[in-house]
């Protein structure tokens, strides 16, 4: 299989983000990496169905998401004891990012219904438009918008945030840390 250099680059370039998305779906790094690997194998076996000029990353996300839905959800119970692994991915996080705050956030995220979490991550972290996210999830744009809104509201409830002031270190502290540190 001679792989086009541009395809190879685009696929590898999407891997870090695919992993982040996969971890948010599986809640477990090892499973997530297996999911990414299976996604790449499927994608490359079907590379002819990729339309050049369209978004490779969105195409890969769609394959990953569909594969997860069809295969991994069957094993959901097993998959959900995930906290430890997700926590491990945070070890490298510098302290000024608010380790505790981030851990609480991650826990809150894990309490969201999967549909909402997925929509929020695609739009809020992966950087897809509502339209692209709708395409990836195979649903209407309005559905994605409402899932994202509900996800945000729910997160704020779980974290009991009523104003930004209650949200960990304040801007001044951050500014001091950022300015003084390096």
């Amino acid at each position: 299989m001679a792989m086009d250099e541009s395809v190879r680059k685009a696929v590898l370039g999407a891997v870090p983000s695919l992993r982040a998305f996969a971890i948010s779906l599986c809640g477990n790094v090892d499973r997530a990496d297996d999911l990414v690997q299976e996604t790449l194998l499927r994608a490359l076996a079907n590379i002819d169905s990729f339309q050049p000029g369209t978004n490779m990353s969105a195409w890969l996300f769609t394959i990953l998401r569909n594969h997860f839905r069809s295969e991994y959800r069957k094993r959901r119970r097993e998959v959900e004891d995930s906290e430890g692994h997700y926590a491990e991915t945070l070890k490298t996080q510098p302290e000024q990012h608010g380790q505790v705050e981030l851990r609480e956030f991650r826990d809150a995220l894990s309490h969201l219904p999967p549909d909402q979490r997925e929509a929020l991550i695609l739009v809020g972290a992966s950087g897809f438009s509502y339209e692209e996210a709708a395409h990836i999830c195979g649903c209407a744009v309005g559905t994605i918008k409402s899932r994202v809104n509900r996800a945000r509201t729910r997160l704020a409830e779980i974290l009991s945030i009523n104003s930004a002031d209650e949200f960990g270190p304040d801007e001044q502290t951050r500014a001091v840390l950022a300015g003084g540190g390096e």
Partner: protein
Amino acid sequence: METAASRHKDHAKPAKLGREVQARLGQQLRALYDDVVSQGVPDRFTELLNRLDGNGNKDKR
């Protein structure tokens, strides 16, 4: 599509989350996500592509 009137209406709706809260949630979400993204491409994936690319036709493995 979005007229000044509709925007005004949106604005008048009881906004459950303020802009700052939304911004903070967004920051947290990206911090979590980017922590994984910053790990780059693990070797297994580069090797996988090399394997598929290199020996695909010659050798099953």
